[in-house]
């Protein structure tokens, strides 16, 4: 199965501004487990690429926050999740039928509970 995780940066990743609870180690682990990973953030694309370089990881995508739909079109997967700290993150996820975690929920790495062979998309909960 292919499961895509989209990380917001500011307020979500520890390298964000302000730093969030999702550490570089957690991102690396998700990558190793086999998730399709990338970032969707308000940071300029060039800055997002630099942050992935700093994490020494190669993302499948970097995207502006409002372009989650494009990420979905360009990255076929069986399930899609975005995580972030702002209402705009939630709404971007909702508009594009992604599952969603608030940044503090994401810091618990809920994706590690997933069965990578048999996973059903968890729909977004109401705001």
């Amino acid at each position, binding site marked *: 199965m292919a499961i895509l995780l989209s990380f917001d940066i500011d307020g979500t990743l520890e390298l964000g501004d302000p730093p969030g609870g999702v550490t570089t180690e957690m991102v690396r682990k998700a990558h190793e487990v086999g998730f399709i990973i990338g970032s969707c953030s308000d940071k300029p694309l060039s800055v997002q690429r630099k942050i992935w370089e700093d994490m020494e990881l190669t993302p499948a995508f970097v995207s502006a926050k409002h372009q989650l739909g494009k990420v979905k079109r360009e990255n076929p997967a069986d399930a899609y999740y975005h995580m972030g700290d702002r209402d705009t993150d939630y*709404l971007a996820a909702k508009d594009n039928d992604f599952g969603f975690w608030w940044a503090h929920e994401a810091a618990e790495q809920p994706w590690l509970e997933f069965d990578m062979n048999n996973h059903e998309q968890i729909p977004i909960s109401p705001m």
Partner: protein
Amino acid sequence: MARPIVPVPDPVSQPFWDACNEGKLIVQYCSICDRRQYPPEATCRDCGFDFHLSWQETSGRAKIVGYSITYDSRLVQWHPLQPFLNVIVALEEDPVINFHTNLIDDFGTNLTEEPDIPIGATCEVQFVEAAPGRMIPEWKIVK
């Protein structure tokens, strides 16, 4: 339909909101400057006094001047309705006077694509209940 943010009248604006509750759209009028004024203020913006300031009923008809769409408001209560439409209409008898409206019956919220807003179209005021007992003016395009 309830609105995300409800206006609380103050002494200056109370007559305006009272009129809304009675289904009338009124604006201030300064007779010595011969000008209408909206939003209401304690004094006339031109002469600087309230000596000649009174309230005047309007036709409630207006034309669409332009619009905006809000994707990321600083007003948290509006977040669940993003993106939403913000239309500006100008009073038919005095186009200097303009008003906000969210325009349509469902007040143009949770837009999925950019709407086709007919600039110049004539609208009529209609009053909607923002909260129990608190009517606010909205505009509807005259078909």
